[in-house]
Each structure stands twice: as C-alpha cells, then as structure tokens.
C-alpha cells in the first residue's frame, strides 16, 4: 500500500560508499522535516523541563554550548568523549540491526579495559611501546568480542533472552574490574590499577585529552558501515532483523550471523575500553566507563542504527555530556539535566520515527 512518502520521490543511486538502493523515503524536504521536527520537539520539552527546575532555558543552552565548544580545551574534551560513544554506539547498532538487543556494551567495555591493562602490565617493558599499545588494543577487542559472544551463544543454543544475559554479564564485568582494581594489579595509593608503561600510551594533542582515539573510532565506524552495507554477512544481519524467516529461506545461516553480530558489537565496545586505557587513563579506574555502554544505545537509536550517522549522533551526545558537566556552577541547574536532555532526545527521535508516515 502506498503511503504519503510517495508524494515526492527522489531516486537514490549508488554513492561513494556504495550504499545500496535505499528504499525511497520521500523528498529531501520531507527528510529534513523528519529530522527537524524531533529536534524542535525535543528542544521544546527540554525548555519546559529546565523552566520547571527554575532556570532559564536559553542560559542553560548557551552555557552548554560554550562549555563544550567554547574553547580548545572543551572541544578536545568533546572529541575524547566521542570516541567511546561512537564505539559503544556500534556495539548496540550492529546487533540491533539483527533485532538482537545487546544491552551489554558497558560490560564489554570493562572487560576490554581489563584485558588491555592485564596485557599492558604483563607483557613487560622490553616490548616497544607501539607494539605493546597494539597488543593492549587487540586484547581489549578480543575480550569484548568473547564477552558478547557468550550472550550470542546463549541466545542461539538455548534460546536465552539476550537482554537479561547481557545485563548479567555487565554485572560480572563490573566485578572483574573491581578485582583488578583491588587485587593483584592494585596501584596501592588511589583506587585504580597500576599504570601500563608510558611508552604504550597515546600522547595527546594540545596538552588535552584529544588524541588518536577519535580517529580510530571514526575509522572503525566507517569500516563497520562498509561491512553492514556491502558484505554478505552485513546484509544478512540486516535482512535477519527485517524478516528472520525470509532470511532463513534465502539461505542465510542466521544463527551464525547472530553470533557474529554480537562478536562484532562486543569487539567495538572492547576497543572502547582498551582505548580508555591506552589513550586516556593508562589504567583501570572504577567508573571509567562513564555509562558509555548505556549512552551508546541512545547514540545508536538516534543514528537509526546507521554506522555513519553514529558519528554526528555521538558528537551530539558528547556535547551534551561535556557541556552539561559545568552547568551547576554556570547556570545553577543540576548536571543531572544532561540525562533528562539525552532521554528526551532519544524519545522524540524514536517517537517521530514511529509517526514518520504521518508527517
């Protein structure tokens, strides 16, 4: 049955990335409207929320922007936060594309961080710094992938619910992180592990938190984007999410794709954890995950599960997170408002997506 989307149509060809013929979703104007309406709607709701808290919405917005984009330091902070957000967004987006609800980005990030630290501390100082950094990162990727694959196997072999399994695995990963922080690798002074050899950590540009991590994250997002659009496995993952039965009949080994989707998602989250070690902290620190794993879900939903759209989506959430942290001092509202803002944005994007045909 035709919908209002047919009112105006544009033909989409193969673009630079070789994106497949995207089902027609209306004209450029209509699409812009679809993006604009949730943004305006979210803005309205947020203004009301801020007013209720007794603050001036425009002031809050202004402080948020100046607190995140106002100086070189702030911008680099945003870029630093963006990297794990992109990667955790991928950790959600890839399995979500197959209708597998991976809520385990948080746990996968922590096991990645733990693995990176364990490798960094044990492999020793004889290894060149760059090699050690690479080993730490690879260990984090492998650990995150394995952690997620557990959930995939439980789903495939015993039809376990992946939401519950990944949530449980988050708790376990948290315990593993506590163990390395307090156990054999404890630094002794502050609650964190010993730091890995400094040769294995990334430097920073502008003497800030901004370094290669963001470029790695963007490169991974591009690679995953190509994977999802232009490989058999990526297409199969998307197809199984749209219609599982039809994908099976077409000859896709759906269970294998599912385990793979979890593995790829977990690898991205594990990479996020490893990068937090080699690019930011040099150690495992309690709370270092900053809820990235959970915010990643929101980032992925706003990006409509498209790996490339994750980049602007992660930028938006990074701006909110960084800009929101200074709000209590600058605008007199609790930084908790950032969670309200994130929540409202997610809900309004989801709501308008559902209502899309009516716009």
């Amino acid at each position: 049955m035709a919908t209002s989307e047919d009112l105006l149509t544009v033909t989409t060809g193969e673009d630079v990335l070789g994106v497949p013929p995207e089902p027609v979703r209306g004209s450029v104007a209509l699409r812009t409207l679809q993006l604009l309406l949730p943004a305006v709607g979210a803005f309205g709701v947020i203004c009301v929320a801020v007013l209720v808290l007794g603050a001036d919405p425009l002031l809050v917005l202004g402080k948020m922007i100046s607190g995140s984009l106002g100086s070189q330091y702030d911008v680099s902070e945003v870029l630093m936060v963006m990297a794990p957000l992109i990667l955790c967004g991928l950790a959600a987006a890839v399995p979500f594309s197959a209708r597998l609800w991976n809520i385990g980005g948080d746990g996968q990030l922590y096991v990645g961080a733990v693995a990176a630290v364990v490798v960094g501390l044990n492999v020793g100082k004889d290894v060149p710094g760059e090699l050690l950094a690479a080993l730490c990162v690879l260990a984090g990727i492998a650990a995150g992938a394995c952690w997620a694959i557990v959930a995939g196997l439980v789903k495939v072999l015993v039809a376990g619910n992946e939401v519950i399994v990944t949530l449980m695995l988050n708790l376990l990963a948290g315990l593993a992180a506590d163990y390395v922080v307090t156990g054999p690798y404890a630094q002794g002074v502050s609650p964190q592990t010993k730091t890995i050899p400094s040769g294995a950590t990334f430097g920073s540009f502008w003497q800030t938190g901004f370094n290669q991590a963001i470029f790695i994250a963007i490169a991974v997002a591009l690679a995953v984007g190509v994977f999802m659009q232009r490989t058999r496995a990526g297409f199969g993952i998307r197809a199984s999410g749209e219609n599982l039965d039809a994908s099976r009949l077409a000859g896709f080994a759906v269970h294998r794709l599912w385990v793979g989707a979890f593995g790829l998602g977990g690898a991205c989250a594990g990479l996020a954890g490893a990068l937090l070690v080699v690019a930011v902290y040099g150690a495992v620190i309690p709370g270092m995950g900053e809820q990235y794993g959970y915010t990643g879900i929101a980032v992925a939903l706003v990006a409509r599960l498209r790996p490339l759209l994750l980049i602007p989506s992660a930028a938006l959430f990074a701006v909110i997170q960084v800009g929101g942290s200074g709000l209590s001092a600058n605008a007199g509202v609790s930084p908790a408002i950032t969670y309200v803002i994130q929540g409202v944005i997610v809900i309004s994007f989801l709501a308008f997506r559902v209502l899309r045909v009516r716009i």
Partner: protein
Amino acid sequence: MRGVSKRFGDLQALDRVELEVAPGEVLALLGENGAGKTTLMRIAAGLETRDAGSIEVDGREVPLASPHEAIELGISMVHQHFLLVGNLSVAENVVLGSRTNVLPLSKRQVEREVEEVAERIGMRLDASRRIDELSIDERAKAEIVKALYLGARILILDEPTSSLGPKQIEDLLATVTTVAAEGMSVVLVTHRLAEIRDVSSRVVVLRHGKVAAAGATDGFTDDALARAMIGHELPPRAIPLSAAPREAVRLRVAGLVVHDHDRVALDGVSFDVSPGRILGIVGVEGNGQTELVEVLAGLRKADEGRILCDGADVTHLGPDGLHEHGIVTITGDRGRWDVIGTMSIAENLALHRIARRGYRGRGGLISWRSVQEDAQRLAAEFDIRPRRVDARVEQLSGGNQQKVVMARAMALAPRVLVLGHPTRGLDIGARRFIYDQIVRARDEGVAVVLLSFDLEELLEHSDDILVLFRGAISYQASRQDATLETVGNAMTGIGARRAAPAA
C-alpha cells in the same frame, strides 16, 4: 457511497466510485488486485479516510471517519487475514470487539449468547474454544458471528474464501445467504467469479479505481465480468500437456514422515517429479501441504524418509544446501517467508544470490550497481510495478509482490521449483501471468511441484495430480484422467482411493 475518491501518492486508488447496498442484499465487489476493492471497503469501515465523496447510511449522510463510528453505525468488516486473538476463546474475542466498558456478566452467559447468535444462522459453534483450535473456516464463521453479536447491519467480507477448500467455501457462502435472509446487507469482496454466481444478487466491478461494470449478477456472463475486471478479452486457456516423459525422475520423495508436535502431519508420502512436468498437489488446508512445502524448502526436518534430487540425497539439507542442488521454493506465505517487506525490490530480488555469495564486486564487496541492473532487467521482464526498484516491497500490491518472488526464483535458474499457493490472493490477470511463468519454466525443463488449495486452477495447469488427505496421498492421476469431482471427493476423504499408478 457517492463519488468516493482516494489518492495514494501518484496512484489514484479510487476515482469517484458509487456503491450502494440494500438491506438483505448480497453485493459482490469484484476487481483485480490493486483495483481498489479493499481500499473502498476500508473507507466504508472507517479504517481509511477518503479524499472526496460522501457516505450515507439509511439515507442519512455520515462523516464516517473512524472505526468506532463504523461499528456504531453497524458496519462490520471481516478481514482477509482474520483479526482474532489466537489464545482467547471465541466468546472472549467477541467481547473484545464490543464497546461496552462494563465487563459482561459472566463468561458462561456470553458464551451462551454467542452460541445463540450462531444457532440463529444455523451454525454450530462452541464459544468456549480457543481460536487457535479452530480451523480456518471456523475462524471465518467466528468472525461473522462476532459481527452479528455486535449488532452489525452491514457486513463486509474481504476475500473470505481465499484459503478455503471447495466444501468449506460452499458452507461459508451458505452462511452468507442465511445472514442476508435475516436482513443483513452483505458486501462480498472477491476476485473469484464462480463463487459470486450462487450467492450475490448484484455485482459491482472495479478496475483501476473506477466502477467498470455494475448491475444484477444474472445480467452478466462470466466472460463479461472477467472482461470488465481486466479490461480486455481473455483468451481461452488450454495449457498443453507436457510432452516430457514421466519416467525421467528429477526429484524423488520417498516415505516422508513428519510430526508436528504430537500430530502426524505427513504419513509416508512418496512421489516423483520429472523434469519438464508439473506435479500438482492439492488438499484442504491442514492436510499436510504446509509441512510438505516446509520440508522441501529445508525449513523443517523430516522424521523419516528421503528426498533425492538427481540421485543425490538432499533430505537433511537446509535452504542453502537445497539451493545448491537447484531446488528453489516459494512458500506462498509471502509476508512471512518470501519477501522482506521493509527492504527494496532490488534487495529482495538479490536476497538469495547474496546469500549464495553472489554479486561480489571489487574487493569482494557487494556491487549494488549490478544488483540494481539485474533488478531493473527483472522488473521489466516480469512487469513489476512500480518500476522503481528502490521502492519498498510492502508498498506493492500482492500481485506485484508475487512477481518479485517469481522473478527471483526464475533468476536462480532452478532445476526443481516448489511452489506453495503461488497465486493465493491474486486476481485473474496476475494469476495468469504467474502461471505463464510456471508453464514457461516447465517447458524449459524445470521439475515443478505445485501446491494449491484451488482445485480448478491446479487441474488446469498440472500434468499430474496428487491429493493429500490427512497427511497421506489419497489419490493420484494424470490430468486427463482426473475430474473435478473425483479429486474433490479425494480432498474431503470421500471414496479415497488410489487411481491408476500415475507417478
């Protein structure tokens, strides 16, 4: 309904349609798929808004902008795919549809009332049974009883017979006649000419959203109606029998046994299919056809028996392995198995080939350009409309969706084609097109297994006929020897017998 118009995008779905139905009258609404029948009726049931036109009930103009309003006006629609909740009882489903906010007095009482309504129209119905447990025809009747119980005065039935056997259709149409005799206005939406003859007094034919013909049913010959539906003369059909020898065996099914939970769904089924021949397998729903398709598609495991393709054992292969042997299946359950509605025509056409590692371009990546080129070629060859291959499949009419499915199957160059109800829910034009393709495949040497509930269609196209009854073969014959009557009897288990060995 006067001057009703409706536009979807650039498609004029309805163009100033006039339709009226009197109390106690059965009106047949005929038309091809996509002619606007369902849209018109959805407007009447308040499920769709109209762009122009007015609607009068009992001579009074009504806005009719919501389903609630339609129900209050006594307009009730039974959908092609019944809208009943499977794990609730018949009575509970009836109550679910009522608009009373006060919970009814007692379950027992509602059940009794529902059964009384059923009895009034000469139907036996146990209102405490769960919908799941009912057969398809019983569900159709439950829908009618529900409408009656809710005080409907205008009953719309959308393709109610599309998945019923001949006997069940007869039963249902008898019920329709009874209901109409009670003063109910009935609109029967269908594209089957034969069944409207007996029950309808008037007929309205829609074509491309316009009324193409209207008047007393007796005033039209079948040919005239068919002409009105498709807009041109129908050439007489006589599919020549295949000249290919029956002795050459492409696919052999031997002693197939399949259990569905505790039920024996297939009980020792054996048959051979030859290249260049069509084997038609007919049966009333629930007699093992569905399970047979699923086994041949590699979606369900056979408990016993073997399937051989050119001598190679393919019994326990999945869909992927079967494709490798050239066995391609269309299940007939389009929305579930055959298409991905939210993906584009091009993506659906390429689905199997990508699964088989096709369309690899530079760097081993999928080349969407060649996917699109192939899709455009197939869309032209199979006359898929709209021709934009980036349109989502769910936006297409049933006939065009089926063309996509058929085009994809043929593009895979199959050796064995298993077709489950390939024309379910399609109009005459689309049916003929699909059958032309099937016969073409046969003549190119494909071994075709054709399963259908539609006996006449099967008798028209198959070279050999086989009847499934309670999971076993109750009859088999070649097309020349089979008659509508003997096969029909075998389908319902009357005089089940084995005719001269046919395969």
